[in-house]
Structures are given as structure tokens and as C-alpha cells.
């Protein structure tokens, strides 16, 4: 039997993930990540103050490409976005960790990168803290955590999130508002765990 092509693999894993296979996502990441990274590169190269390129526009590209490759195994575009949001969260958190490790390792940031690197370090730290808080939130309110993930990491609109979660858009908005306040309080050092 010939090994499955990357496209077939992606398709199979997506099915697995939809059917609740927790390992599927792990395996999906390395397959989809390059595509997202390519898009991220392009995003960065275009990203200039004043540009209005939206995350969703970027994900649209990714979706179209993947849909093409995987013969549209997605239920719909929003569904893909939900996966993509998870992936993006994963990727960004991993990279943020790498950069934090670099800093803790005491390695001097190379000269010309100074300014960029400093900003990145701060963002990396913030992102890691947010990720941690989001985990805590998920421990007692997974839906709200999901909403934040889709919104913040995936850039989905409220309507799209509602579509994925099959709940009313007003509920999504309320979830988002409450989760945002909770996260901000948690990150501001308030004791928010117990209720």
C-alpha cells in the first residue's frame, strides 16, 4: 500500500478530529502549519500601518488553498476557521515559548534585531500569559474559552462563531464580553479562579 499523500492525510485527520480523536489535531498541525506560515509571511511582508488586511482574509486564502487540496472536506468555511484558530493559537504560543526560552537562556539578542526583538519579547510574554489564563477559563467554561480562541486567534466574526458553535449570535457576544472581562481581570492579577 502506498503511503497516503499529504492531502489524503489531512483529510483523514480532519475527519478524525471531527469525530473526536484528540490525537488528530496533533498530527494536523505539522501538515497545515507550513501553509499558515507561508500566509503569515505574506501577511507580515504586506503588513504596514494603515493596511486593513484582516486575519479572516488571510484565513480565506488558507481555506481556499486547503479546500483545494483536501477536496473540501470541511463542513464550511467557518468550520475551517475554528480549526485554524486552534492551530494558530498553538503555533503562536509555541513560538512565544521559544522566544521566552531564548531570553531566559540569557542569550544576547543579536544587534540589528534589538528593537524588533524587544517588542516581540513583550508580545510573547503577553501571549503566553493570555494562553495560560485561557486554559484556566476553559477549565470551568469551555465554550467561552472557545469563543475567545476563535475570535482572538482565528479572527472569526461573531456570526461565524455562532455558526460553528451552533448557538445564537447574541450568546456569542455575551460570552465574548464576559470572557474578555474575566481574562483582563485575571491578567491584571485579580484572583479569579474560584467562584
Amino acid at each position: 500500500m502506498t503511503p497516503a499523500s499529504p492531502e489524503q492525510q489531512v483529510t483523514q485527520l480532519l475527519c478524525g478530529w471531527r469525530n473526536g480523536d484528540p490525537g488528530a489535531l496533533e498530527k494536523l498541525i505539522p501538515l497545515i502549519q507550513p501553509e499558515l506560515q507561508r500566509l503569515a509571511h505574506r501577511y507580515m511582508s504586506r503588513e504596514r500601518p494603515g493596511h486593513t488586511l484582516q486575519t479572516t482574509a488571510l484565513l480565506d486564502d488558507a481555506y481556499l488553498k486547503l479546500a483545494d487540496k483536501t477536496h473540501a472536506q470541511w463542513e464550511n468555511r467557518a468550520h475551517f476557521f475554528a480549526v485554524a484558530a486552534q492551530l494558530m493559537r498553538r503555533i503562536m504560543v509555541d513560538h512565544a515559548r521559544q522566544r521566552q526560552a531564548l531570553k531566559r537562556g540569557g542569550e544576547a539578542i543579536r544587534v540589528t534585531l534589538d528593537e524588533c526583538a524587544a517588542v516581540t519579547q513583550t508580545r510573547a510574554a503577553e501571549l503566553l500569559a493570555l494562553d495560560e489564563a485561557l486554559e484556566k477559563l476553559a477549565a470551568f467554561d469551555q465554550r467561552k474559552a472557545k469563543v475567545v480562541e476563535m475570535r482572538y486567534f482565528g479572527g472569526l466574526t461573531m456570526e461565524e462563531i455562532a455558526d460553528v458553535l451552533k448557538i445564537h449570535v447574541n450568546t456569542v457576544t455575551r460570552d465574548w464580553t464576559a470572557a474578555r472581562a474575566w481574562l483582563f481581570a485575571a491578567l491584571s492579577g485579580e484572583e479569579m479562579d474560584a467562584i
Partner: protein
Amino acid sequence: MQSERWQSCTEIFSAALERPHNARAAFLERSCNGDDALRRKVELLLKYHDTSGDFIKSPAFEVAPELLVADPEALIGQHLGCYRVDAVAGMGGMGVIYLARDERLGRKVALKLLPRSMVANEAELQRLKREARTTSALNHPNIVTIHDIGEADSTYYVATEFIEGETLRQHLARGQLLVSEGVDVAIQVASALAAAHDAGIVHRDIKPENIMLRPDGYVKVLDFGIAKLAEQELPATMPRDEALLLGETNLGLILGTVRYMSPEQTCAAQVDKRTDIWSLGVVLYEMVTGHVPFTGDTPAEVMSAILEKEPPPLTSYVARAPAELHQIVSKALRKDRGQRYGSAHELLDALKNFRRKLEAELERAAAPLWLRWARSPIALMLLLLVSALALALPFYRHRNLPTSLPPEKSIAVLPFENLSKDEENAFFAGGVQDEILTNLAKVADLKVISRASVMQYRSGTERNLREIAKALGVSHVVEGSVQRAGGRVRVNAQLIDARSDRHLWAEKYERDAADVFAIQSEIAQQIAGQLRARLSAAEKAAIAERPTADVVAYALYTEAKGIEWYDWEGVDRSTERKVKLLEKAVQRDPNFALAYAYLANAQFDIFHSAGGSDLRQLELAKQTAETALRLRPDLGEAHLVLAECYYYANLETGDFDRVRDELVMARRTLPNDSEATSLAAKVDKRQHRWEDALANLRRASELDPTGVEVTYTRRRTLLEMRRYREWEQALARDVESGAIKGPRTQLYLADFKLAQGDPLAAQAFLAQVPLEFSAFEWVWRIRFEVALYLRDYDGANQVIAATPAKFAHVHSGQPPESWADGQVARARGDKQKALAAFAGARKEMQANWGDKPKGAQYFAIIAGLDAGLGRKEDAIGEALRAVELMPIAKDSYWGPRFVMNLALVYAWTGERARALEELEKVATIPNGPTYGDLKLNPCWDDLRGDPRFDKIVAAAKAASR
């Protein structure tokens, strides 16, 4: 999953949010129903909700896109194709730039990874490659060369020339530039743009991040990688299918940082070359004032300023900003691009005119031209180094604008366009042009511009032929194209009368690739015939001859010849590469005489650029040249290398008979060779034929109008001959043509003023030279002399202390640093310190010289030191020895220097009459002491007040023309 308490908490929170602030407390009171813990939680959420601002409102992706990409540092130590990534060099618009090593060629490169999405398909990759080829093919000294675009481990990369130095952005972070510096940078950028625009390429992203400043004053424009071939304004010579492909490029994609965007870019309108002119205007404005012309707190504000506002005048930041500069900047920054400079050439001309005026003003501000060129005894030894270094000057290529009309039978063979698909054929195309040039240069009846001076015109577009011909001083131009595919070769060539743009002759050849020699010979013969050049039978035979029958050997030879010094990391490396290729070529065809000659030439270059002291390397070059001559006794190229070898082998003895013999042989078959001509001039100078030397140098600089060495040697010779007016004309012309760049102009002028006895003017010029500009030691020598002549002894000591190499190149015949210390101490009257310094210098001299053969230079230096130490008999004996070894009669170039040295020794040992007698011999002849030296150098203080000395000083002054 949600606990009930948490659920009620969020429900109450959501409901409270829908109520006005003042109603919330009552609502909570009601809803929480005495559950204080619950109420506190809701209140906390409300409080943080109200203060959360923009918290996580923008997707993470937009806030920190860099986190979606792997850590740039992770790649360090990894391999990409043949590149090993060594370090992160910086961050550019296209992402991270790495410093990497090409392990195949052993050179440093800058490596950029291309977003895969930018090169999603083969067509895009091809387009990028095509652009890279086009810009690199320009071989413009101000454009960064792209070596390679490729794919490895499913990553696309671009490998470019690695530039030492910093970006203009980094430089500006330390403050704005002087007007003259800013203009110099702008001139170089404009020159790069002019070349790129001629080739149909618009940069689109000119900004300080994309401009590199090298420590030697060179400016390099980066990132032509994102420049797209201009959709409009295709050069007339662009083939149709190429033009069709251009249609694919995205229109209206806004690129470039907002502040440097042109009005048309902010509107996403189609850009053209005038967009780059705008951006350069912004950069020039920023360089001079330290501020960008269009500002705003948000990008939108900046854009509206770009579209609507006029920038504050330069004078609002720099009070004394010249009005003309303001006009240039304003014209570059016209909102309506129709009102801007129509081309980068126009802007370049305006900038150059302005620079000329700046310099003229500085000149006027300096003292009048009534003094003369002089040189002190300390400089006697230093001069040896100066001339050695002058030879090592990098061979900058620039335009020259001769004033007289070019002769009828004159021609420049411009680089041919490579129309083949793969890049390797660039060598092939280069080889065809080179061979046609070489063939024509064999015709004595023609004036053929040297390869060195034509290679800068790689773009080969039609529109500038007239200008190019004017700059090179020729009436005719040859251009063409080469295409090789499937064993067939197609060559197009045309001869154009550049004065009238008339095509005199054009021909297409299509044959087997192996027949390329025949095509080259035919083209050369046709052109010679069209120009009605008289060809001797020998010349005809030489043109028809095949250099080798081995196609592979010939390809290696062509590749070696195609290596320009600026293709690689430096002269040394490129020469080594040449040697390797040529060694392979002669291995394949041991009868390939021309390859041997060229190999000898490269081996000689290694000897030369290493300082000219490795005699074994010189011997190697000589032997290779002799091998070539055994195969082909009349081969001019080999005779020329032999002449060079004999010249350097006999530098000390001045025995140049063999050099002259070899040169006669060389010039017989190489009538248009500027190197042979300038070597002849060097020999002339040493053999009392100063006028011949000048004539030869004039001829050499006509053949190689942009050659730095040739133009420098010519100016130097004018100075030595005390022809100051001609020197000034030559300097003006060389500055005008760009042959002299940056701070060098001021240094030459400082040196000139010193010779004229005006150290204050010299100081004023020096003040314009950044202290870090010390590419060559003569910079420090001039600084030292200025301080010494001004009797600013502390200043002189500071210069000595700051000189990087500590004046210590004893092997070049230069006295140790402490000799300079001794000079200063002696002039100050600090006898003890002077004695200590001279004693130290003497010890160092002896230690350094060791058992090496001691020539006139050694005895001259030791004599000066002994004179300083009061060892009169020894000093006089040694100084006489130096004169005996190299008397004026035997060497008209160095002879006068040793006589001056003898005069100094006499002066310092109380032999005033003898000192004056010696000085009288040299005060008015070429390469004798300058007026400034005699008048101001403290070393002659022992002679001052004597009317006979005054007469000598006056004579030196009167001898200048």
C-alpha cells in the same frame, strides 16, 4: 461544564451591562440576593470590563504576526542548499536577513527567505529570477548583486552579495548627515536608480532601510527583489514575449512604508520610475534635516500629508541649507509626477551640479591659489607607501565626460544582452562581447575603450547610447545580444553612430555553438570595415585566430574573465577564483596560450594586492607568462604580464630595460591597452621622460576613462611636475565624472593645499572628512602634516596616536611611528624626547629590517634617524649611500627624494651650506620638495633666515605652473 454559580455570575454581569451605570448597584443588590461573594465577582468583572479598552480586540495575528513564524534564530547553523546560515544579519521588509556562507564558493552572502506564498507558482519564481538577472546584470556598483534564487528543503531563498556596513536607517539613528554627505549618498542612489530604470525596473521601496552604507563610502541599494518590472515604459529593446509576461505583475499593490510612499502609491495607482524619484526625495530630505517631510500620528494622517501638504522648507531644520538643494528636493517631491524630474538621470545631473557648486564654494572659501606643491622629508618615506597604496585602490568604474570631440575611428563595445534562459549563459554572452572587444582592440587604427570602462553599461538599452558614447569619448557603439539553446547560438550585433543614433550595420548570426569564434571574428572584421579602419595582415590574422579548440576550456576561460572585482567579496577572493578556473582551463588544453597569459595576470594580481612583497608569487606569475610565450611568442597579453613582473622585480634597482622591451612587444598586439600604456608612463617617470609619461597617461585615461588607477596616476604626475592648474582641471573632471568619490575629493584638495603652503585651507578641507574615513594611511599622513605645518604639535601627536597602523609599515620603506614622534619633539625643542624617539625608531628599523637586503630606502631612513640622534658622520655617510644607490641620473622619480633626504641630514647636522647646495638641485625639478614643505615644515627650521634658503623657497614657488 459551567458551574451554576459561574453561570449566574455571567448572566448577572451581562444583564448589568445593559443597564446604565447609575442603575447597576441597585440591580446587583437585587440579583445577587445577599450573596456577597457572587456580587464581588460580578463587580470585579464589571470594573475590568469598563477599563479593558482594546484588550484582545484585535486578533493576535494582527498584533504579533511574527509569532506565527518560526524563530529566526532557529535557522542558525542550518544548511539551505549550499548555504550555511551563520547569523541573523537584520530584519528587512521581506523578513529576516541572514548572514550565510556559500560553502561551494567559500564566500559570504546575505540570505533572505522568501515567503512561499510570494512564489506560489513556477511563473512567479521565474519572474523573480528574471528580475534578479536583470538587476544583477546591470553590475552597477551601487546595486547589490543577487547571486542566486533557489529552493532548498521546500524553502525559497535569495542569496545576495553581503555588504559590510550599516543601513542608512542605522546611520540616521545617530543624527542627520552633512549636506555634502547626504548629496553624495543621494547621487549614488540616483545612479543605481538610473541604471535600473534604463533596464525597465522600478524599485518601489526606496527607504533608508534599503540603502546600505559601506565603510569605504560606497552606497548600495538593496531589495530590488520586490521591485517589479515597470509595467509602463518598457524599454524599446525588450522582446515581445518578455513584455507579455510583464502583464502578470500585480498592479496597484501598495508596497513600501507609508512615509516614503509617493502620492500615487498611497492611492494604489500604477507606479513608474518617478515613484522612486519621489522616495529618494523623501530620503534626501531626511538625510539632510533628520526629519521626514510628511508626518502624522497615524498612517492615514501621513498619507493625507503626502497627498495634500507641502513639507516644511529645509531651512526650518537646517538654517544654512542651500536654496538649490531645497529646489532639488522640492522638484523630486512634486505631488504631480509629471512635474517631478522626468528620470533618475535628470535628478542625478541636478545633484551632481549641486555638488560641483558646493565644492566650488568651499574652494572659494579657501585661500587663493598662489602657493605650491611641497612634500616634507618625513613624507619621503611615507610617499613610498602612498604610491604602493594608490596602486591598491579599488578599481571604481564611473562615467567620464571628456570635453573634446571624440575621434571618428573610436568605438565602445557595450556588454551584450544574454537572452538565454538559464543564468549560466550570462558568461557565454559576456564572453562573446569580450572577444569582439578584444579583437577590435587589436586594431591599432582604432580607439577601443577598455573592458573595464564599458562593463558598467550592462543594461545595454538604446536610449542612453548617445550619453554613454559621450561619457566614454567615442563616436561609435556596438551592442548586441546572445542566445544559446540546444547547441545553437544566435548572436545579434549592431554598430551605431552614437552622434546621430544612426545604425550603420546590423547582422544576425545563427550557428552551432562551437562556431562562436567564427561569429566573433566576423563581427569584429565587419565593424572594423564599417569604420574604414586599416588592418595590417598581422591584425587580420590575429582577429581570425581561435584561442583554443576546446570548448570547455574556453568556457572556463570566459567565466574567469567575466569575474569582476565587485562580483565577489573583494579583489583577493575573485582573483583566487579566477586562478582556479584558469588552471582548469589550461589543464584541459595545455596549448591554450591566452589562458596561460590571463592566469599569469591573475597570479600577478595576487602578488600585487598582497602588498608586492611575496617574490615567489611574482616568480610564479613570470613563469606562467613565459609558458604562454613558449606557446605563442608574440602574445601581447603575456608580454604585458612579464613587463609588470620585471617592473616590480626591479623597483629598487630601477633597471627597466627589460620592462621596456616587453612593453614594446606587448603594445605591438595590444595597441589599445590602457594598462600597458600606464605602465610605460611609470617607466617614463623614472627615466627622465616626464612629458612622455604625461602623454602616455593621457592616452591611458582616454582608453579607460573611468579607471581609478589611471586617473589617479595622471593627477599625481601632474602634481609631481608642479602643474597645478592642470591638476585642478583634472580633479574637477574626475569629480564630475564620479571617478573620485566622497571624502577623497576633500583629501586630495587638502593635500594640494598643503603643497601650496596653505595648511589652513588644507585643514578646512580635512574638517569635511569624517574621522572614521581612514581607508588609506595617506589620510593620516595628510592629517599629520597639516598639524605639523601649523605647528600644532599636540595635534600632530594626537594624529600619530590615532593612526590605526601607527605609521609602521617598515617593509614598504616607511619609518616607524616614533620617527614621527621624534619629528614633533625636535620641532618643539624637546631634545630629550626627540632623542628617545629617534633611538626607539632606529632600534625598530633594525629589528624589522633584519637581514633583508638594504637598499636606498633603508639607508635614507637610518640616515635621518642618525641625524636626529646627532651621529653626524654615520648620518651623512648613510644619506650619501642612499643617493649613490639611486641617484637622480639613474632614477628621475626617486632620485630627488634621496637628495632631499641628504639635504635634511646636512641641515640637522649643522652642514648648512651643503644642505642648501643639495636643496638647490631639487627645488624646481619634478618630484622635488614642494613650496609648502620648504616654507612651512619645521624640519627646515635650521636653514631659515638664510637668504640662500629664501631664494630656494622662492624658486620652488616660481616653478609651479
